[in-house]
């Protein structure tokens, strides 16, 4: 809510003076008490007929004890009867919690600054310090120590009209206050009039001033720098105001801007091209009460009224570095900046717009980074009243904006022409006025009074927003798999009384994503709720927790919402029958068994590779990875293809994104062999001489796999022994037999054993050795024909032979020899 009040009291309705260059101070201990100053006489018609002149010895102070709704004049500022002005430059400040009222003014009788005080706004002030200089500008704050209160008073001024200087009163409440005089400019001893101070309650004091940038000092051709200095102990450091060293030249005082032109010297005092006012030494500074490193400065650039601009800039590091211009306001003067306890930045100024002076209050919830709200406080003529040149300035060289708590208070001067359209944000006049005829009326309520310049009070009440949020399941998003997301709605409700401005929404965890906002701040009106989508997109597995932080102008900002979610892991289980045993598989054969890759987790399983060792072979996968859905299984054939007989073992290794690592499973198999078994007798007993006898052996494979019988032969060649129709080499299938017939020719004189060798791939008995035994029975006939038999011509006696065992035969010699022919 914005309130604008013309400060001229009703009983002062005859007033027609040029009450310009206002200032204001709110008692921080009681914001109903507000004081203001301007060039206000102790009589309402001082400029009407004769030269301005004081009637008495006390110039008035504007005072309100109802928060600015009504105003009175309190005649408490030292002046002198007959002075042509009530005071020259004047500012007043409440000391802080003490309620003491201080003023700094240039006494009209001489070029002297008086520093005065009184216990309240209604008591005539008493001088307690005096210096020579220009434009005293007071700032003050209270501190407590040892059970007592000290008023820290800072009087910025231009000492002897040349040097930016600050008087520091560590305890202005003392019976006899002491002070130090601190000259601020270490570069050149020539500065412009304004020396502005900003106080942070932790004792950090900033001062801004314009320094002429050469030894030539003040001259039309001079350039100027904007310099900020700092003290960290209420201006009482051992070397005061030297805490900020310029990053360029290494000297005390950071130069915020350099080489600015100096229209101050080139402009007319009341320049028709600048709303009939002068311009140039515009300067303001403010520090964030919540952050002593954050401060704003406003200054003016340009060479003429045509290109003059106010520049608003910010430092976030205690004045060391500065932003580019956050606001550039052309053809404007009287900047004032303040920051409230919510961090809201207020910026007031007066700008020439056509034939009007437009007094603006801009308020930004994001420090003028991206947005602000504008309030037109007044839009009044630049030439009504007609400038007289008496004051050197039309509206004055400053206005004032300050914050107390979250509210902004300020004052400005403007034409009091009673036209409602001049005050689009509303206006209250205490003085008599006929709005219908747009006429000011005197104290009698009848007599018209000429238009003049009046001080106006304004107050922007910042209603407090209050943020409240709601989210399902206490901020638990349930589970989301890696690469997937879950959205939840965060309801942001403003249950306060003022609009809520959200400057930033951040997540402390990358797993929780806040919505993208194209342009902050978000504005939520009182009683209104908005939905903010919050996304849980886990970046890693497991339980994830984070905080959503909402930065706003809620006094308790940031508002924190705790969120959590689960990103489950996939779980690979390997399943294979028979404990991984592939059973018996003959060499050269193969068997496939399915290996089940089961995902027993709640998120998809990604299989990157499968490897097998030994005689086990995995299925060929053309392209990894394989993805297995939660709760499903993928059968993967594993092949056992033994290359050698015997037992075989191997390991199947499956690599996946199961956080427990690769899974392995042992497999085994056996490659059996054929087994040579021979049945039948190799003992012939006695065979009648010259007869042959046969014995048949059954060469069998009693194994499980094929038996390769590579040969059957006698170890030594003998004419007495012979294999008849030797079938070998041959492959015997399991259970198969082949007969092997052994023939004995009974012609040897003496029995001699012979060894039959059967060779196979039976690993247990690659060579089967068998003795074949037979002897020749020399009976009568054989004896008779023995010689023949010996000679091998038994055939001629076959008919005569009596082969009781065997059958008649005849064959070659019976010389023994081995299979290779060796005897």
């Amino acid at each position: 809510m914005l309130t604008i009040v013309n400060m001229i009291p009703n009983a002062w309705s005859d007033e027609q003076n040029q009450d310009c260059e206002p200032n204001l101070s709110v008692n921080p201990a009681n914001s109903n008490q507000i004081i203001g100053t301007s060039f206000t006489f102790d009589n309402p018609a001082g400029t009407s007929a004769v030269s301005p002149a004081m009637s008495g010895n006390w110039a008035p102070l504007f005072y309100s004890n109802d928060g600015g709704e009504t105003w009175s004049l309190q005649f408490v500022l030292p002046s002198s009867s007959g002075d042509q002005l009530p005071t020259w430059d004047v500012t007043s400040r409440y000391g802080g919690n003490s309620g003491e009222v201080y003023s700094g003014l240039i006494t009209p009788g001489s070029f002297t600054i008086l520093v005065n005080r009184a216990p309240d706004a209604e008591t005539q002030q008493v001088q307690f310090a005096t210096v020579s200089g220009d434009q005293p500008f007071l700032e003050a704050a209270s501190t407590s120590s040892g059970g007592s209160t000290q008023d820290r008073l800072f009087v910025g001024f231009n000492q002897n009209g040349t040097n930016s200087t600050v008087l520091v009163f560590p305890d202005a409440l003392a019976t006899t206050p002491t002070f130090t005089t601190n000259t601020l400019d270490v570069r050149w001893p020539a500065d412009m009039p304004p020396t502005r101070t900003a106080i942070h309650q932790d004792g950090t004091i900033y001062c801004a001033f314009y320094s002429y940038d050469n030894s030539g000092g003040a001259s039309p051709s001079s350039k100027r720098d904007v310099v900020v200095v700092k003290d960290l102990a209420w201006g009482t450091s051992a070397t005061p105001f030297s805490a900020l060293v310029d990053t360029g030249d290494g000297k005390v005082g950071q130069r915020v801007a350099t080489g600015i032109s100096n229209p101050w010297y080139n402009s007319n005092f009341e320049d028709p091209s600048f709303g009939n006012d002068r311009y140039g030494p515009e300067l303001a500074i403010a520090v964030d009460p919540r952050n002593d490193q954050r401060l704003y400065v406003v200054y003016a650039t340009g060479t003429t009224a045509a290109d003059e601009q106010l520049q608003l800039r910010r430092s976030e590091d205690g004045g060391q570095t500065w932003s580019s211009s956050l606001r550039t306001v052309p053809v404007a003067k009287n900047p004032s900046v303040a920051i409230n306890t919510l961090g809201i930045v207020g910026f007031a100024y007066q700008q020439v717009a056509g034939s009007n002076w437009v007094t603006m209050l801009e308020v930004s919830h994001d420090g003028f980074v991206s947005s602000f709200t504008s309030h037109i406080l007044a839009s009044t003529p630049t030439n009504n009243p007609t400038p007289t040149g008496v004051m050197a300035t039309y509206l004055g060289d400053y206005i004032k904006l300050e914050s107390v708590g979250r509210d902004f208070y300020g004052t400005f001067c403007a034409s009091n022409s009673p036209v409602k359209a001049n005050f689009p944000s509303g206006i209250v006049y205490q003085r008599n006025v006929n709005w219908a005829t747009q006429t000011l009326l005197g104290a009698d309520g009848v007599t018209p009074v000429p238009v003049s310049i009046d001080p106006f009070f304004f107050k922007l009440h910042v209603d407090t927003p209050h943020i409240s949020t709601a989210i399902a399941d206490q901020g638990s998003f349930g589970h989301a798999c890696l690469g997937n997301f879950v959205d939840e709605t965060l309801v942001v409700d403003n249950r306060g009384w003022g609009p809520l401005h959200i400057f930033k929404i951040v997540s402390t965890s990358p797993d929780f994503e806040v919505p993208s906002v194209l342009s902050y701040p978000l504005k939520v009106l009182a009683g209104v709720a908005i939905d903010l989508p919050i996304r849980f997109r886990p970046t890693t597995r497991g339980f994830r927790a984070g905080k959503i932080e909402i930065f706003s102008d809620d006094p308790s900002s940031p508002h924190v919402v705790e969120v959590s979610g689960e990103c489950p892991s996939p779980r690979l289980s390997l399943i294979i029958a028979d404990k991984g045993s592939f059973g018996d598989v003959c060499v050269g054969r193969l068997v496939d068994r399915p290996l089940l890759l089961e995902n027993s987790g709640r998120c998809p399983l990604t299989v990157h590779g499968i490897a097998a060792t030994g005689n086990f072979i995995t299925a060929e996968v053309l392209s990894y990875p394989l993805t297995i859905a939660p709760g499903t299984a993928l059968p993967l054939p594993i092949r056992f293809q033994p290359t050698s007989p015997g037992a075989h073992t191997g390991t199947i290794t499956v690599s996946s994104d199961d956080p427990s690592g690769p899974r392995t499973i042992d497999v085994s198999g056996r490659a059996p062999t054929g087994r040579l078994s021979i049945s039948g007798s190799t003992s012939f007993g006695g065979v009648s001489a010259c007869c042959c006898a046969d014995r048949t052996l059954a060469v069998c494979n009693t194994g499980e796999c094929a038996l390769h019988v590579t040969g059957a032969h006698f170890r030594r060649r003998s004419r007495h022994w012979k294999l008849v129709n030797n079938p070998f080499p041959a492959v015997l299938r399991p259970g198969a037999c082949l007969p092997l017939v052994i023939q004995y020719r009974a012609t040897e004189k003496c029995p001699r054993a012979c060894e039959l060798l059967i060779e196979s791939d039976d690993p247990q008995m690659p060579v089967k050795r068998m003795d074949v035994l037979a002897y020749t029975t020399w009976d009568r006939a054989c004896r008779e024909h023995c010689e023949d038999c010996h000679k091998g011509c038994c055939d001629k006696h076959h008919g005569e032979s009596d082969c009781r065992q065997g059958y008649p035969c005849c064959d070659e010699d019976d010389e023994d020899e081995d299979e290779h022919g060796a005897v």
Partner: protein
Amino acid sequence: MHSTAHQLIPLADSSVFIFVGSIGSGPTRGEAPAGRYPVSVHQVIKAPLGLVGNLKGTVTVQMSQPAPHGRYVFFADPISVGANITLKERAHVEVTMLEQVVAAVTDGYVARLEPRLKEAFLVALGVVGEVRHLTKPAERRGRVPWAHAPFEIERVLKGRKAKHIALVGPNPASKRLPRAPALRAGTRAIFILQRPPQEALELLGEDSRQSVGFAADTFDIQPPERLDLIERTLGHGEEE
């Protein structure tokens, strides 16, 4: 209590307001204790310009000491002005002394006026014309911003009769010449003029220097209503 006009002059000079008023319309009877009381104003003897009308009716007066109900001549200064005017009483005298009080006011004024008139080479009622600067803007910084203006004379009270003369003075008002009022176009008043300072004369042409006046003090510009009194003080319009 002051018994003679002469004794009342310092009080009359220093008091911003002098008026005849009555205590007695308040809620209590008997003597008014020290404090703020409504006082009905019957006659204004001295008040700043523009405030005469405000004293009609009732004002609040912070009494310096208790006083019986009755009609008095009040000497007072302003304390505050809001919806009403509150004054701080310096003193009050019986209304029977009204004539002495009026005389003291006049005598005090004349006492201040006489030395100014004596020093003046020209006292005249007239109107200030268009004000023009004698220096460029850049030359005004750090020094008195001298300006000049024609002064159309309606009536000469002291000095050589003329229809017009030039005025020099600061414009705007200067901290370096704090008592000298700024030249303001359109001002119609009685000007008590002296020769300008050499600093100002040097900015004028040789021909102009002889007919230039300078109001050195705010008291040197008096409202037209003072014409008769000033004439009387000057001895019926002293002429050269």
